[in-house]
Each structure stands twice: as C-alpha cells, then as structure tokens.
C-alpha cells in the first residue's frame, strides 16, 4: 500500500500535533489549582521510587506542572510520573476538570524527552518489541493472512 505523504503534508500534521500538545499544556498550567486531589486518589503513588505522603500532594502536583513547563521536576514528581498507568480515577476527582490523566501523559512525554527537552526519567526500551510481534504473527497466521492483514 502506498502511504507516503508529501513531506509538507507530514510536517503540517506534525505541527498540528505539537500545537495540540502545547495548547493542552497551557490549558492545564492555567487551570490547575494544585489542590492535590489527583495525587490523593491515585492507586499507583506507593510504587514511586520517591514516594510522597498524601499531605505533600500539592507539592507533588506542583512538581508535575514544573515538568510541563520544561523545567527539571522534583524526585517526588518524577517518581509519580514514572508510575502513572492511566487508571483515570484522577479525572472525576479533579474539581477543576483539568483532566489530570492528560496532565500526567504530557508530563510523561516531556520527562522522557519526547517533546524535545532534556530527558528526566528513563524508560525501559524493548529493542525486540516489534520483531517479537512479527515473530508471533508468523507462528499464528498463514502466509496469506500475513500478506493481507499486516
């Protein structure tokens, strides 16, 4: 299948994605009041390498916002960002409808260096990820299915 878009079209889509992420970042930064409810209800905080008490929730959330600004985050904020698994119960818990799940996803992308800044947390990359998927496909699908479905 031919799926090569002209370079200009690809660049325009990339620019739209960046613009969306930036607009969301600015919306979150302007609307979050650091009340800490999202941290308090999160079931993953205990897995953080730098765990923080619920009493420090406001500071941890403040640290996440710092990361979103492109600045080095606190160990507690980065520890929380690293263990976010998108449980999503922070979303209804937020009194300002900030969408903390989106806040954490963007913070994760930023902390991983995915949005152009410095890398602040490490991610375990699996170099065989796609090859393993292709290999299992070869074990499970026929040649015809591989040709037409993948």
């Amino acid at each position: 299948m031919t799926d090569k878009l002209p370079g200009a079209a690809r660049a325009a889509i990339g620019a739209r994605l960046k613009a969306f992420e930036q607009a969301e970042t600015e919306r979150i930064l302007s609307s979050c009041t650091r009340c800490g409810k999202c941290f308090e209800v999160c079931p993953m905080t205990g897995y953080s390498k730098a765990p923080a008490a619920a009493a420090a929730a406001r500071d941890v959330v403040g640290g996440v916002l710092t990361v979103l600004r492109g600045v080095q985050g606190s160990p507690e904020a980065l520890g929380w960002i690293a263990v976010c698994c998108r449980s999503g119960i922070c979303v209804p818990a937020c009194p300002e409808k900030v969408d903390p799940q989106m806040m954490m996803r963007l913070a994760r992308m930023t902390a991983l260096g995915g949005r152009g800044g410095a890398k602040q947390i490490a991610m375990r990359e699996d170099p065989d990820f796609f090859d393993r998927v292709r290999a299992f496909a070869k074990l499970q699908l026929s040649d015809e299915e591989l040709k037409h479905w993948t």
Partner: protein
Amino acid sequence: MTPITFWYGCNVLRHGDIIHACLDILRALDFDALPVGGPDYCCGTVKDANQTAAGGMATRTVGRFNALQRERVVAWCPSCHSHMQEFMGRANDMRFAMTYLVDLLYANRARLAPLLVHPVPMRVLLHRHLGFNEHSPVNRVVPELLRMIPGVEVVEDDYRVPGYMCASLQAVPGAIDDMIAATLRAAKASGADAVVSIFHQCYRELCGLEAQGAIPVYNYIHLLARSMGLAYEDEYKAWKKAGDGAALLIGTERIARVGVEFFERALLPELKKRPLIPKL
C-alpha cells in the same frame, strides 16, 4: 454486509485464535470485517519518548485507514483506541469513525444473543482495570455480554486493578505481582471457576496462572466463541503451559519461520516466564 476495518493492533498477534474468533463473530453479526494490524499499523503509543516518531507512525496508520475507504474502524486494542481518540485524531484528517469492539458487540447484542447456543457452565471473575472506561464502559458491558452465554455466571465484586491494561503495569516494579495476588484473592473469595480477561495483554499475564495450576484463564472472546460453536485452538496458552516444551508443540517448521536463535532468545523466555504465586 456492513464494511468495517477491524484494527486488531500489535500484541494480540500472539493470539491468532482471538483474532480469528473476532472475525467470525463480526461476520456472524453481518459485518464485512477487513482485519489489519501489526507494526505497520502501529498507533505510536509505544513511542512516548519520541513524539516525532509517534506522530509519524500515527500519520501513516491514519493514512492507511483513509485509503481503505471504509466508514468505520473497529479497534480491539484499548491502547490503540484511546491513543487515536486522545492524540492521533487531533492532528490527522480521519475520514472514518472509531468504535471499540466491545461497544459494537453490545450495540448488536440482540443479534448476538441467538448465536450463543452452547452452554459454558462457569462461574467467572472478570479481570477489570480502573482505566479505559471513559472510552468504553467495558467493566459494565462485558459482564452483560458474558451473561448472555448459557451457563456463565459473572461474579460481582469490587475487584479492580490499577491502570487500564496490564501492559501499563509491567514497567512498574511490584505492580504485576500485586495484580496477581489481588486476582487470586478475589477469585478465591468469590469461588470463581476461572478468571476472564477483557484485554489481550492482561490475558498474556494471566495465562501464567493457569500454567502454574492456580486457576483456569480465558479471554471473554474465548467464551463467546465457545458458545457459538467456534473451535479455535488457544495455542499461546498451550505454549505457555508447556514452557520449555513449547518448541515441540510449535514444531521445527514454524520455528524456522522466525529463526531458531530469535525464538530461543526472544520468544521462549516469555513462554517460560511464570508469575509469583502468593500464599493465600
């Protein structure tokens, strides 16, 4: 028949039986389902650390869906579905509607019900996560689908695992062990005969429980398919249960397709991996 694109994703390619059963179920519901997936149709969600790459992958995949000229893409994978909603669709010109498979099955439950003719006598604990339900109310809907199967009883309890799918827990030390312990505790407390997953990544993790002799494990599609009389062999589970003996089950001809070295280095360790079974 209504033409749709069935976007099964990447990692479910470990479970050819699930893909084949989904296609049969969709056809029985009068959908002309065109299956696509694998790395060439990646949504890009695995590339959080490189948004340029993630955006490029998403653009390629959306472009391919547009070229197929089918009005609806039905997703199997919750990662693909949510990433499409939250990011891919924000920048790309999507000339199709997105639906999650569970929602499509539920919307067509009146047509599905008469097809579920074979009893599956089983009291099951549904492996539910906290997340993803804002995209599709799977925690509420999958039990309703399962209860349409003669003989299936779904345990109602408060068991909910963090995250949206077990894949997200794999990178967090201790989280999978806790999930396994919570699952076994809930299964024991409820007297369940089996644990049933909604998503493939969870199924992959939970298969280790059956391999350890702890409790039988299925995906909800397995139970729907069984009740419809569809008999696909669950090879991944058989390989997982065989562990070191998986190579014998797979056979030299198929292993040669992926290469002996790669099989032994990258596939066999996954098939031999066993969860830590806690004392309850």
